C-alpha cells in the first residue's frame, strides 16, 4: 500500500507522465463539471423552494458558497504543495502553485462579489469591515501577492521558492476565515452546513447546494489540469520529450 502510494507520488512529479494522463482525464472532468454546474444552477434558481425569511434573494447561495468553499480549499492545497516544494524540491509543486493561484483568486473574487450583491438587499450594505469579510479580503490579497511574485524573479527556481514561502505565510489566515464567525461578533452569519451535526438549511435547499459545491470542485480540477498542462508546456518546450510529443501530433 505504502509502496504504491510512494510510486504514485514519484510519478506525479514526472512531467511526461502527468502530461499524458491529464490529457486523457480533462475531457471527462470538463463535461462532468460543467453539466453539474448547469444542473445545480437551474435547480437552485428555479426549483428549490423560496426561503421563509429572505425570499428569493437567498438563491445567490448557490454561487456564493461553492466559490468561497473552493477558494479556501485551493489555498490549503497550495500550502501543502509549497511545503512539498521546499522540502523535496519537487518541481511539479511549483507548477501546481503557479497554475492554481489564479483559479483561487478568481473564486475568492466571485465569493466577495456575490457576497456584496447578497449583502446589499439583506443586510442593507455592500460591505462591512467585520472579521469574516476582512479575513476573506486578506485571503484574496495573498492570492494576488502569489500571482504577482511569480514574475519578479529571473530564475524559475527562485520564483517558486519565494512563492512557496509567501504561500506558507498566508495559510495561517485560513483558520481565521473559517472560525471568525464563531470567535467574534460579525454581521456574517455562522455556517449552515455542518459535517458532524445537523445542517441548519432544509434538505430541499441543501441538495442542490451540495451539487453546486461538487460542481465547483470538479471545475477547479478541470481548469487546474488545463492550466498545469499549459505551464508544463511553457517550462518544457525545449526538452526532448516535449518536442517528440509535439512532432508526433
Amino acid at each position, binding site marked *: 500500500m505504502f509502496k504504491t502510494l510512494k510510486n504514485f507520488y514519484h510519478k506525479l512529479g514526472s512531467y511526461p507522465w502527468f502530461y499524458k494522463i491529464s490529457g486523457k482525464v480533462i475531457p471527462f472532468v470538463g463535461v462532468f463539471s460543467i453539466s453539474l454546474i448547469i444542473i445545480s444552477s437551474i435547480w437552485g434558481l428555479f426549483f428549490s*423552494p*423560496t*426561503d*421563509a*425569511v*429572505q*425570499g428569493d434573494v*437567498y438563491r445567490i*447561495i448557490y454561487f456564493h458558497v461553492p466559490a468561497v468553499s473552493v477558494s479556501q480549499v485551493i489555498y490549503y492545497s497550495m500550502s501543502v504543495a*509549497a*511545503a512539498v516544494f*521546499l*522540502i*523535496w524540491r519537487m518541481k511539479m509543486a511549483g507548477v501546481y502553485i503557479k497554475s492554481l493561484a489564479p483559479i483561487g483568486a478568481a473564486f475568492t473574487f466571485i465569493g466577495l462579489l456575490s457576497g456584496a450583491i447578497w449583502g446589499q*438587499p*439583506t*443586510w*442593507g*450594505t455592500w460591505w*462591512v*469591515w*467585520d*472579521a469574516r469579510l476582512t479575513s476573506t479580503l486578506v485571503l484574496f490579497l495573498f492570492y494576488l501577492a502569489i500571482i504577482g511574485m511569480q514574475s519578479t524573479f529571473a530564475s524559475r527556481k527562485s520564483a517558486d521558492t519565494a512563492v512557496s*514561502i509567501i504561500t*506558507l*505565510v*498566508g*495559510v*495561517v*489566515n485560513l483558520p*481565521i476565515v473559517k472560525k471568525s464567525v464563531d470567535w*467574534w*461578533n*460579525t*454581521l456574517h*452569519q*455562522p*455556517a*449552515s452546513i455542518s459535517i458532524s451535526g445537523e445542517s*441548519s*438549511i*432544509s434538505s*430541499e*435547499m441543501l441538495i442542490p447546494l451540495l451539487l453546486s459545491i461538487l460542481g465547483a470542485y470538479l471545475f477547479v480540477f478541470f481548469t487546474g489540469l488545463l492550466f498545469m498542462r499549459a505551464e508544463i508546456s511553457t517550462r518544457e518546450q525545449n526538452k526532448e520529450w516535449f518536442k517528440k510529443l509535439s512532432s508526433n501530433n
Partner: protein
Amino acid sequence: MKQHRLKRLYGVLFIVFCSALAFVLVYFAIRDNVNLFYSPSDLFENPPQGRNAIRAGGLVEIGSVRRATDSLEIEFIITDLKKSIAVNYTGILPDLFKENAGVVATGYFDKSKMSLDAYQILAKHDENYVPKEVKKALEK
C-alpha cells in the same frame, strides 16, 4: 527522512510558526476592535467614552418598534436577553429588519439615557434556511 530534508521541514514549520505568531500579535494589538459591534451587556459594563460612533448589536425586542406616522423616524429596543438599550433612527430600513431578528445599529451613544442615536441600521440574518411553505405549515 534524510537529514537535509528534515532540516528543510523544520524550516517550513518555522515559517508557519513565525507567521502564526505575527497574526497573534496583530490580533492582540487590535483585539478591542475585532468585534463588529457591542452587545447591550458590553455597553452597560463598559460604556464608551467620548463622542465616537459605535455599533450596537442584538435582537430587536418583540413589541418595541414604534414608527412615527408622519416621518421615517423609528424607535426600538436592542436586547441580548440580559440587558437592553433604546435606539432611534430616521431612514429606510433593510428588508430583513423585524422584531426578534438580529440587527446592528451604528451611531452615537448617550450614556445618560443608555440610548443610541443611529445613522445606519444593518440587518443580521441567521444561518437557518427554511422553505416558505414549510414555515407557514409549522405556524398553523
